[in-house]
């Protein structure tokens, strides 16, 4: 929806000479396509509301109250191509499906122009396949609306949430095997692209764990002495991990580092107010 707003900026562009009808992304459109009464600003939003080429065709047919079974292919093709052209003009990511449909319309149109042979039995009306597809699509478009109107749990009906008075007893929780957890993670890794893979590195996990520790140390309102985060018992590696964790948190702007003077103690505190913290 915000796409419509971005286009309004174009109206403020300086204009010279013959006023164009509109400037859409730098391209001047001197007149709206014939029989197309949609303000170009709204066009992008408008086109995004179509669920695809069949949906657009249905709209065109409906808009002119045409019988779906008697589509004047030439006229529809003409209008359809105008829409496709408009999409191109405003650099809308033009889905290949729209082009395929345009080609299909053009093909039907050309075949309609050829004389029909009465004696050839097998020859079917070139519009038949299109009509069939449109009808089939329309049924499911309707079914989708019907489903949306059906009352369902979580939107129209809600489950009851009353206080349950139980006998003293431990509630058994689902058991989770570490393997299951790893499998779930593997499934994510398989889905995300390689670039995201690299963000998840082995070395990081100890630092990430430490980040969580440092953050929980900072939960109070007071400033925490930077030095107090380090424990000599952990050895050199532990110190490095803590330092890396603090740097990472600073980078994420989750914590602040404060030092009153040079050589004064360094304090850390969480960024922003803390009252919402659990």
């Amino acid at each position: 929806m915000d796409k419509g707003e971005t286009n309004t900026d174009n109206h403020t562009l300086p204009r010279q000479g013959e006023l164009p009808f509109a400037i859409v992304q730098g391209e001047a459109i001197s007149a709206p396509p014939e029989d197309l009464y949609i303000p170009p600003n709204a066009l992008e939003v408008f086109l995004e509301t179509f669920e695809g080429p069949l949906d657009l065709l249905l709209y065109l047919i409906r808009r002119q109250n045409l019988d779906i079974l008697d589509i004047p292919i030439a006229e529809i093709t003409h209008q359809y191509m105008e829409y496709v052209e408009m999409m191109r003009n405003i650099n809308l990511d033009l889905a290949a499906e729209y082009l395929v449909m345009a080609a299909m319309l053009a093909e039907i149109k050309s075949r309609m122009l050829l004389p029909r042979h009465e004696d050839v039995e097998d020859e079917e009306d070139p519009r038949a396949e299109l009509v069939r597809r449109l009808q089939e699509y329309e049924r499911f478009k309707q079914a989708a609306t019907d489903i949306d109107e059906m009352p369902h749990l979580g939107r129209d009906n809600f489950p009851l949430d009353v206080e349950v008075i139980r006998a003293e007893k431990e509630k058994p929780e689902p058991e989770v095997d570490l393997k299951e957890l790893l499998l779930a993670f593997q499934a994510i890794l398989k889905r995300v692209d390689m670039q995201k893979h690299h963000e998840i590195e082995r070395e990081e996990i100890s630092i990430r764990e430490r980040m969580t520790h440092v953050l929980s140390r900072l939960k109070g309102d007071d400033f925490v002495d930077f030095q107090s985060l380090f424990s000599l018992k952990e050895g050199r590696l532990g110190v490095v991990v803590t330092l890396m964790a603090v740097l990472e948190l600073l980078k994420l702007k989750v914590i602040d580092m404060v030092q009153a003077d040079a050589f004064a103690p360094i304090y850390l505190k969480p960024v922003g107010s803390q009252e919402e913290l659990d």
Partner: protein
Amino acid sequence: MQKEKLQAILEAILVSAEKPLSVEKLLGFFNEDDLVNRQDIKRALEQIASFYQNRGFELVETASGFRFQTREEYKQWVTQHWDEKPAKYSRALLETLALIVYRQPITRAEIEDIRGVAVSSHIIKTLQEREWIRIVGHKEVPGRPALLGTTRQFLDYFNLKSLDEMPSLSEVQDIEKLYPELELKLKEQQQENENELPS
């Protein structure tokens, strides 16, 4: 068991359940000494349902069994509790769902064929996570694409006992009269695409 007591027990059980409970499951809560049979439970459930007929919530039966839920007519009162408004579904999601409901088992490619556009993985994933659809098998064609179907949870969500209760697909318009030349071709198609739901 006295019928008022049986009703009260069933109410307490149902109101504290996280999902719908079948008569069979409810029967499992009782032991022999309770002297309760299927018939008693069925009758008690009917009485409970009628007792709450004019209240703020109701007892409904869905595919998996019986559950209490707030009545649809009071939804705008109930939703005032929450900051989050219930999710709205995109047309793409609903059309995809409609195709899976009425044409199951169906592959993603078949859905794309009818809709004329690619189906995003996001939509399939969302439907799977809501547990409305699942993979019911694989089609024996190259690539063995997954066949999608609806779940029992889908029926539970939509207050349905079975898919038969879904509204039927709209009829294909009467072709012969309007467009005689198309008659033959479309008749064949119609036969393939019967209106009936898969059983």
